[in-house]
């Protein structure tokens, strides 16, 4: 019996309708800025707006900074926990769950209280300081995904043997991390990076409360003031999310394996 069951078809089609209708509607709406005809004007309006370009580049730079800082924090920690300090694992795993338990709005509220101009570490005093704070907030948001991605990458390679081999050849720990471990988990790290990008690029709450000119804040602003451009922005965001997720799937095919999977 190869044919699908009728109830399965009904559920699938209902689901497909719920998920595809908003996409179709958004595309249709974004094309109907001119009465009676389809046009791409909403897209050209958005893409040509200097505000769009500035905020998008800003968010992209923050995302890249987030990924770099995140990797610098996560890779050594995950490496040492896996190799030599497994007793720290419960603590680290608990930490990586915290960003899921604490909503972003709580996190940024805490930052604003803690790092304001009258505190010991007045990060919100300067533009640079606030940008640093925004990046660190995003690192916190991305921590669960980044850690899980890197840890999964470490699990697929033989960390023990690679480290010992490098040691015998005279490499010190930083060299091992940079030239042996990282190249082997780069695919996993990249999938964490793309997930981070998808999360960070349109983030609104934190950027807005820290008063940074981010893409999410710009989108909200357009949403409050324009009719058709928001739909165009939604389509653009959807494409970006899709591209980021597509990259992760694509990368998964190139994952190197120096050792057979042991678990």
């Amino acid at each position: 019996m190869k044919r699908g069951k009728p109830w399965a078809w009904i559920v699938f089609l209902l689901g497909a309708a719920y998920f595809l209708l908003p996409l179709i509607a958004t595309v249709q709406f974004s094309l109907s800025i001119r009465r009676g005809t389809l046009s791409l004007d909403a897209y050209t309006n958005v893409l040509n707006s200097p505000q769009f370009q500035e905020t998008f580049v800003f968010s992209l730079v923050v995302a890249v900074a987030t990924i770099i800082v995140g990797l610098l924090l996560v890779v050594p920690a995950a490496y040492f926990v896996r190799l030599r300090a497994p007793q720290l694992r419960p603590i680290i795993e608990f930490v990586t769950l915290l960003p899921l338990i604490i909503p972003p709005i709580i996190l940024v509220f805490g930052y604003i209280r803690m790092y304001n101009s009258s505190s010991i570490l007045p990060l919100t005093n300067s533009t640079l300081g606030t940008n640093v704070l925004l990046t660190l907030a995003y690192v916190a948001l991305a921590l669960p995904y980044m850690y899980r991605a890197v840890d999964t990458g470490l699990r697929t390679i033989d960390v023990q043997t690679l480290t010992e081999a490098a040691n015998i050849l005279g490499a010190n720990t930083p060299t091992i991390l940079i030239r042996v471990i990282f190249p082997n988990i780069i695919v996993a790290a990249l999938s964490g990076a793309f997930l981070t990008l998808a999360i960070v690029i349109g983030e609104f709450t934190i950027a807005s409360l820290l008063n940074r000119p981010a893409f999410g804040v710009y989108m909200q602003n357009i949403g409050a003031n324009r009719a058709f451009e928001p739909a165009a922005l939604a389509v653009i965001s959807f494409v970006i999310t899709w591209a980021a997720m597509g990259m992760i799937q694509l990368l998964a095919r190139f994952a190197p394996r120096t050792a057979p999977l042991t678990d």
Partner: protein
Amino acid sequence: MSSSLDTIAAPNAAPASAGAASSRGLLASFRGVRLGDLLGVAPFLLFAVLFLVVPTLYLVVGAFLDAKGSLTLQNLADLGTPQILSSFWISIRVSAASAAFGCVAGLLIALAIIRGRLPAGIRSTVMTFSGVASNFAGIPLAFAFISTLGRLGLVTVLLKLYFGVDIYRAGFNLLSFWGLTITYCYFQIPLMILIIAPAIDGLRKEWTEAAATLGATPFQFWRFIGLPILWPNLLGTLSLLFANAFGAIATAYALTGSSLNIVPILLYAQIRGDVLNNPGLGAALALGMIVITAVANIVYLVIRTRAERWLK
């Protein structure tokens, strides 16, 4: 927060017990390296303390301090105003409704694609789409639903044109409890699919066959075998989805501005202006949110650990 928790939620937390045993031997022989190891982990832990733990504790403590810095319960008592209570109530209702809908719909879709004998390819397409849709949240999601179910949205217009149904005249409003719930389901259902699919895969074919051999109807199979095994997973995911919706703000804010008073939006307004001239009250609001999302998440984590024992 409404981003993909799927990577976390996927039950891939296989503890490296074998590695642990062998590295303990290493630890003994490389006793001197320990400080170096700690240096590798230290930045991570320092970051966690400075940017996750302390800011949150700062708010929790702040909820119990008055303007002069002495201990008080007044802030918590001040939460009892009708405005704040109703915001908590509507937040809880939206989160619970979208979590329940997401749970049921996600389960049905997952069952359909895994056990419904649909053509090959549908499953992987649905899973990929779920990965994207569970990350497609925040501001753009609100725009998509305004284009769909807003006053000039495609579905609204088509229903009026072809079926003569004016959903707005019938009392529907996108900027309301139902509107928000329907919108939230767009990221809740995919999340459910991603989390529950591995659990459904864990239901072995042999069990279905054994039950059928003993004369069980499909209903009896699900009533006495399938659902009891999936039950912990379902409950756990329900609380995860609840927490996921409870902390979300961007979608609601872009959808409704500040016309729908859910807790995160109230807190957002409070942070923006510190309007109530009472920093303690903001902290108390935050404490309320932390308590609710933490409880929901802890329920999820506890149940998940128990559920994993069955689905190996």
